[in-house]
């Protein structure tokens, strides 16, 4: 194996063995280890990665309060009734002031987590923008390796430009609700272009037909898939089965059209590049005082050099100075 990740300790190997046998406590411990970026995080991920690639990753995005958590709870029950094992990773924001967070997605998932075929994990963004945490898709992989058939990912629900999820999930579900604005809202770029499936939730509270019609007018076929629009009521269990059907159908479409492989390819490329970028930045910043980075910074401040030329020089010197293996490859969100 070409991996340069450090060898795993006996304790981590033990945890991974337990994870592969389906142990929930081991899964939880491994997610923490990765999330806290502990020294053995890379070793753990390297052991887990070969056991991933089977689960269907489904992302949920949409404004706060549209009902993502409630919808996920009902979907988990629906998929369980169909005999599928389901993992959930639910992301909520970290306070930029205190670094703390209140993670409340589990409230809507009350006793669902007690089912042996379900695993729910709450996660704080810890300063990462874009609606996900840095470790979100690492956690997804832990649940994939654990044997979950589907892993549902709930983003923080930031609003209009939270599109990162679409590049990482196999299927992206955009959740909307009625009474949230006029037809122009559905014309705006960003979140309304990324959905593979659109949901208009809270159909028990208001008429959804206007929003459904507006969405239908805007949504176009992409790569041979026309995103369906499903109106649901998560609280009244209205048509959640139709949403489950749509998710299953999208998976079948990805498999039969070759899109699954295409998305894998895009994702792998993107992940390698993001890791390379992060590792490079870490190495450059970690350089000793008086290093190339420091000298170049001074030159830029003194207007002797522009930032772009400085970057070119930095890359050249980085390439010619081999250092120890980077500590932490990770699957970026």
């Amino acid at each position, binding site marked *: 194996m070409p991996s340069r990740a450090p060898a795993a300790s006996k304790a981590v190997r033990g945890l991974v063995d337990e994870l592969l046998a389906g142990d*929930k*406590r081991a*899964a*939880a*411990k491994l*997610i*923490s280890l990765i*999330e*806290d*970026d*502990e020294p053995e995080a890379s070793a753990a991920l390297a052991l887990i990665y070969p056991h991933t690639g089977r689960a269907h990753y489904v992302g949920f995005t949409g404004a706060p309060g549209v009902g993502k958590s409630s919808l996920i709870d009902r979907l988990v029950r629906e998929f369980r009734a169909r005999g599928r094992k389901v993992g959930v990773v639910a992301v909520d924001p*970290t*306070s930029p002031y*205190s*670094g*703390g*967070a*209140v*993670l*409340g997605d*589990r*409230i809507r998932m*009350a*006793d669902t*987590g*007690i089912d042996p075929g379900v*695993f*729910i*994990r*709450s996660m*704080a963004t*810890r300063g990462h923008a874009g609606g996900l945490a840095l470790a979100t898709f690492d956690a997804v992989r832990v649940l994939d390796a654990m044997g979950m058939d589907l892993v549902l990912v709930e983003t923080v629900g930031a609003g209009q430009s939270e599109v990162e999820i679409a590049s990482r999930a196999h299927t992206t579900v955009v959740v909307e609700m009625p009474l949230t604005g006029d037809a122009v809202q559905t014309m705006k770029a960003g979140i309304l272009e990324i959905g593979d499936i659109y949901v208009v939730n809270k159909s028990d509270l208001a008429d959804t037909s206007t929003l459904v019609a507006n969405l239908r007018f805007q949504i176009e076929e992409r790569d041979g898939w026309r995103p369906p629009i499903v109106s649901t009521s998560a609280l009244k269990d209205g048509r959640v089965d139709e949403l489950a059907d749509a998710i299953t159908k999208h998976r079948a479409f990805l498999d039969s059209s070759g899109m699954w492989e295409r998305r894998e390819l895009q994702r792998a490329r993107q992940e390698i590049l993001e890791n390379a970028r992060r590792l490079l930045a870490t190495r450059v910043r970690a350089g000793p005082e008086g290093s190339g980075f420091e000298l170049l910074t001074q030159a830029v401040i003194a207007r002797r050099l522009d930032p772009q030329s400085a970057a070119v020089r930095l890359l050249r010197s980085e390439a010619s100075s081999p250092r120890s293996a980077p500590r932490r490859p990770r699957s970026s969100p």
Partner: protein
Amino acid sequence: MAKKIRVLMAKPGLDGHDRGVKVIARALRDAGMEVIYTGLRQTPEDIVEAAIQEDVDAIGLSCLSGAHMVLFPEVVSLLKKRKAGDIVVAGGGIIPEEDIPKLKKAGVRVVFGPGTPLKEIVAFFEKAGAAKGA
């Protein structure tokens, strides 16, 4: 990234009073901790399962219904049964003075009554988290 202290705040049993638990969740958040709040009317099984999946350092149980003598020890014993006895359990709410020694004997680490300064509660969870992270 430094290790974050994670705390589960839970309301066991049939008790709809959640003002106190929310105040504490907020205080722990402001102290930089990650607080998972699971809402009202949880069974001890729900709470223990959530604590394991969330890999928390400690659980804060809030009870104002009078059923603490059954519910709190049940959470402690289920944790032990699931080999998660290292998770610290704290209790709070309307707890008669004479019940406190019995709860502590049953494995509840500390009991906070009404009027406890938030600082004291924050300090307890910080210490519990630090001890477990070591």
